[in-house]
């Protein structure tokens, strides 16, 4: 595996199995009335089998759109303009509607942010579980219902057989998110795309849901693309993390490393902003300025206007992702002197 290419594959040696999810140079555009906005600009990442990869960044960085692109539910007029998305080696970004439909649920599961609105209020949860399984697995209605009840027990809702007859409004928020998890996993996918699964929950419930997510996926060997802006969750369950800024990935690497010693200036600032409980006088840190809106991304490195260490090169050229040990970082500061030409 060549390790000096910009759209690099994971440089970690010894990973024999191909990644479950392989995104290369993904570009998502949103044509509006006046012009075309680029929301995801050359994003590349891989998720190994059974691994949990966190995709973090501020609101508006393009994380959710990346997730939507993977499951093929980009809201029009958004569209995939370039790049490749491979699931277990097979390209899925250009598939027809019918083929994509077969993949969803069966190979890729998805969980969205708001459990309250993710469930159809008119149907029982048992119904919704059973229909999902029957859409993908060959099951009789009775068998599907039995499994639905078993799933409810599995996610901690007892007694499953009774509660399967209840409607979503009869469950609390935390329980609903657990049902949503069950729904996403019941057709036995290999990959789960979780888009802000804990954001809408109380802190006390977040921990439960996160633990459940981790357990279920570990037990079944399901890889997870976890999209979130909550560093706590990332620290809790992610094996690796990718930091996103203005539609681009600025740093990727093992969680412990990135969180303790972030290399990219934005990642550094971002992690420094996380308030800690350690007794520390002083103000909350914040980064000056704001992430550029779609259509206003500066030339060169997207972060350079806010970067305390920006160089002339940062203004002109967009940095490529370069390996640094087990990580990939897109920053000229780490690049060393350029081959030929002036800094």
């Amino acid at each position, binding site marked *: 595996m060549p390790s000096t290419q910009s759209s690099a594959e994971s440089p970690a040696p010894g990973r024999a199995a191909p990644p479950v999810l392989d995104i290369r140079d993904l570009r998502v555009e949103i044509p509006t009335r006046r012009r075309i906005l680029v929301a995801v600009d050359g994003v590349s990442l891989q998720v190994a089998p059974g691994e949990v990869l966190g995709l973090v960044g501020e609101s508006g960085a393009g994380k959710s759109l990346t997730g939507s692109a993977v499951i093929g*539910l980009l809201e029009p007029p958004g569209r995939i303009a370039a790049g490749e998305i491979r699931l277990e080696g097979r390209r899925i970004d250009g598939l027809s509607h019918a083929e994509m*439909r077969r993949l969803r649920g069966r190979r890729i*599961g998805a969980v969205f942010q708001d459990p309250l*609105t993710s469930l159809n*209020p008119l149907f029982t949860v048992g119904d919704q579980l059973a*229909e999902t399984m029957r*859409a*993908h697995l060959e099951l009789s209605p009775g068998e599907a219902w039995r499994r639905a009840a078993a799933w409810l027990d599995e996610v901690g809702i007892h007694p499953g057989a009774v509660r399967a007859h209840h409607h979503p409004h009869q469950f609390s928020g935390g329980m609903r998110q657990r049902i949503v998890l069950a729904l996403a996993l019941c*057709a036995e996918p290999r990959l789960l795309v979780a888009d802000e699964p804990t954001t809408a929950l109380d802190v006390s419930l977040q921990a439960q849901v996160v633990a459940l997510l981790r357990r279920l996926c570990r037990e079944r060997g399901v890889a997870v693309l976890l999209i979130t802006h909550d560093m706590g969750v990332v620290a809790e369950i992610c094996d690796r993390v990718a930091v996103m800024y203005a539609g681009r990935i600025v740093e990727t690497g093992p969680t412990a490393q990135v969180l303790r010693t972030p290399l990219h200036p934005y990642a550094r600032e971002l992690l420094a902003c996380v308030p800690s409980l350690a007794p520390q006088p002083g103000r909350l840190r914040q980064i000056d300025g704001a992430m550029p809106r779609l259509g206003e991304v500066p030339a060169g490195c997207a972060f350079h206007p806010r970067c305390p260490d920006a160089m002339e090169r940062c203004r002109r050229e967009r940095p490529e992702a370069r390996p640094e040990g087990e990580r990939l970082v897109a920053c000229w500061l780490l690049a060393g002197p350029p081959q030929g030409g002036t800094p």
Partner: protein
Amino acid sequence: MLAFVLRRLFQAALVMLAVGFIAFGLFTYVGDPVNNLLGQDATAEQRRQVAADLGLDRPFPMQYARFLSRAVRGEFGVSYRLGVPVADLLAERLPATLELSCSAMALALLAGVPLGVYAGLHRRGRLARFLMAGSLLGISLPTFLIGILLIFLFSVRLGWFPSFGRGEVVRLGFWSTGLLTQSGLRSLVLPAVTLALFQTTLIGRLVRAQMLEVLRTDYIRFARARGLPDRVVHFRHALRNTLVPVVTVVGLQLGGIVAFAIITETVFQWPGLGLLFLQAVQFVDVPVMSAYLVLVALLFVSINLAVDLLYLAVDPRLRAGASLADRVA
């Protein structure tokens, strides 16, 4: 749930009382109540008797109470214009209006719902856009003009259908129906279509709008994310969620049909309640106006109540009410 039903009944009663009040006001203070009750040809003796009965010298609330008791028994006095007891007039005309209204509603539903669903599902398709453009035309056409145009085309030019009247009717007990004779059915076609056209457009647009909104929801998105087939997503999920609020509105529309029937009956000289009411307004025939008001209010209130109950049956969230026992933390 019981509380919900009781509350609704209570509100219904309030509305009826309010309407009864207006009708009472009309009856008593506009024109001469004695005349209203007896008609123009009563003797002086009868008048004195009735004046005493009515208690015109009694306090206001008592008069109101008496009016209500008479109304409940169906005594609304005598029509100025026709000299016939109002209750008889109403009874005679009711079947015509009901048959017309129900036929029109049935037509509107049969046409409007599928069209709306189609336009909602295929939002950007050519046919859907054409239908939406057509629907704009549909709500720009006043009912009476539709009637005139249909008469012009199908009666005057083509001669397929009669341009007025109800045709032959068959009496079944107190009901007279035009559905059992060929001329009756043929006479029903143009008026029913006229009445239905506006409603079809409204229902179509409503269903489409609701469908589009439902298709944007998170639970539909999640259903797709679970890989459910389109057929299931559209017809099992989206359709059911769409129809629930549509049912309410359609129920309320039924009331509108009764009102638009006034126009249709006028254009086609259909012998129903609507025509009766219009003639009463033109003539200032107070007893008829007042009775029609009460009758129509009763109809609306009953329909509203029925729709509320239907909603209750269909939406599980309302069935469980706010009972905490069902919620397990």
